[in-house]
């Protein structure tokens, strides 16, 4: 298969960031109260991801390995700011509905995960398609979860009435508890049918797999730094003994 097409399929199915890698749970839970919100969040994240992937891939030879995290943070935060300003200018309703979750794309594990694991080591073209694949995979997942919650919680999908008028909406599904419940059922079904997912350990082995494993999230670089910090006194003691 064409290697560019392979990146797209990988993001959509094999390593779908939401259903398989279970990354970026905060926006997934928070904004999926309707299908349209899913579209807005998904496409904003896709734009940030694609732009950051391309820039980091282009600069990968110039970024010193030891200080790569600050570089990534600045690039990603700049892209997020650009997207935020564009949304405010051209889609004020989307910007209103998503609120602080747009600037919070900066700390979305998907972005740092892909930048760190893929774009920092691969060519610009491949990174571009990796970003598109992952972004569209994330968008589709958000739309699916959003549609499901909107259907049960308001009886509509994309604001079109689907349920018969006698249907009494279960409002809980568009409220915070509904988000947790939908995700609980989703992961339970994944366990039941033994589908690949980070949460049951059967997903593709990846350093990025979340499943609540914070240490392997984008904080990894800080965790390593922390270990170095902790080792320092031991080294000093060893030196003293030698004296």
């Amino acid at each position: 298969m064409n290697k560019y097409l392979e990146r797209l399929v990988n993001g959509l199915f094999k390593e779908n960031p939401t259903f398989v890698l279970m990354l970026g749970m905060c926006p997934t839970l928070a904004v999926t109260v309707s299908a349209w919100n899913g579209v807005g969040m998904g496409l904003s994240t896709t734009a940030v991801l694609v732009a950051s992937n391309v820039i980091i891939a282009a600069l990968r030879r110039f970024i010193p390995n030891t200080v790569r995290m600050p570089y990534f943070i600045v690039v990603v935060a700049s892209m997020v700011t650009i997207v935020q300003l564009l949304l405010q200018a051209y889609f004020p309703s989307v910007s209103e509905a998503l609120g602080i979750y747009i600037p919070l794309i900066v700390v979305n594990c998907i972005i740092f995960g892909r930048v760190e694991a893929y774009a920092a080591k691969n060519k610009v073209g491949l990174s571009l398609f990796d970003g598109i694949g992952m972004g569209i995979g994330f968008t589709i997942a958000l739309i699916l979860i959003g549609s499901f919650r909107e259907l049960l919680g308001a009886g509509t999908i994309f604001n079109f009435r689907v349920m018969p008028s006698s249907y009494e909406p279960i409002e809980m599904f568009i409220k915070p508890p509904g988000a947790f419940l939908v995700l609980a059922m989703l992961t339970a079904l994944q366990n039941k049918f033994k589908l690949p997912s980070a949460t049951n350990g059967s997903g593709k082995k990846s350093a990025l797999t979340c499943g609540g494993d914070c240490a392997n999230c984008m904080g990894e670089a800080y965790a390593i730094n922390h270990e170095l910090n902790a080792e320092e006194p031991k080294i000093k003691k060893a030196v003293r003994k030698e004296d």
Partner: protein
Amino acid sequence: MNNYFVNLIIILISAAFINNVILSQFLGICPFLGISNKIKSAVGMGLAVMFVITTASIICSLAFRYILAPMNLQYLQTIVFIIVIAALVQFVEMVVKKVSPALYDALGVYLPLITTNCAVLGVALLNVEKDFDLVESIVNGFASALGFTVAIILMAGIRERMAYNDIPKVFKGFPITLVTATLMAMAFYGFSGLV
């Protein structure tokens, strides 16, 4: 003055319980689900988060008020805040290590995880969005972190009990944790009539 004080108490209650960072705003879900299997580690994480969010609220609020706003650079807030928070966490780690090794032993492991915690950036952004002054930002930051700590410790307590329960096979692990979170979110949703 009296009104201002009442206002602070309302901010405290609404940030800690009504708009709980985890259970109604979904900020900081990773540590909530990841580090909540033992009460001891949940307490450590909670205290570290409290410390960092309160400090970050102060610094970000100062940076926004006295550097960004006078220069009309408000649109740079996302970039500035994330860099300030990342630097702050590393700095706090170094200071705590030097000043209080005991505290470092207790909180050290959790500090690096906090940089990437969306709750810290989220609270800093909310302070700006709601146009809080310095004192209000500190109260809001502290109260949000308190809400985080309460939620994660409750979760850890429930999970410790649940370890001895008979759970359906497909619900073991992640799903049952999320079902617990659902019930907790429902309980906290009851606070919404409070203020």
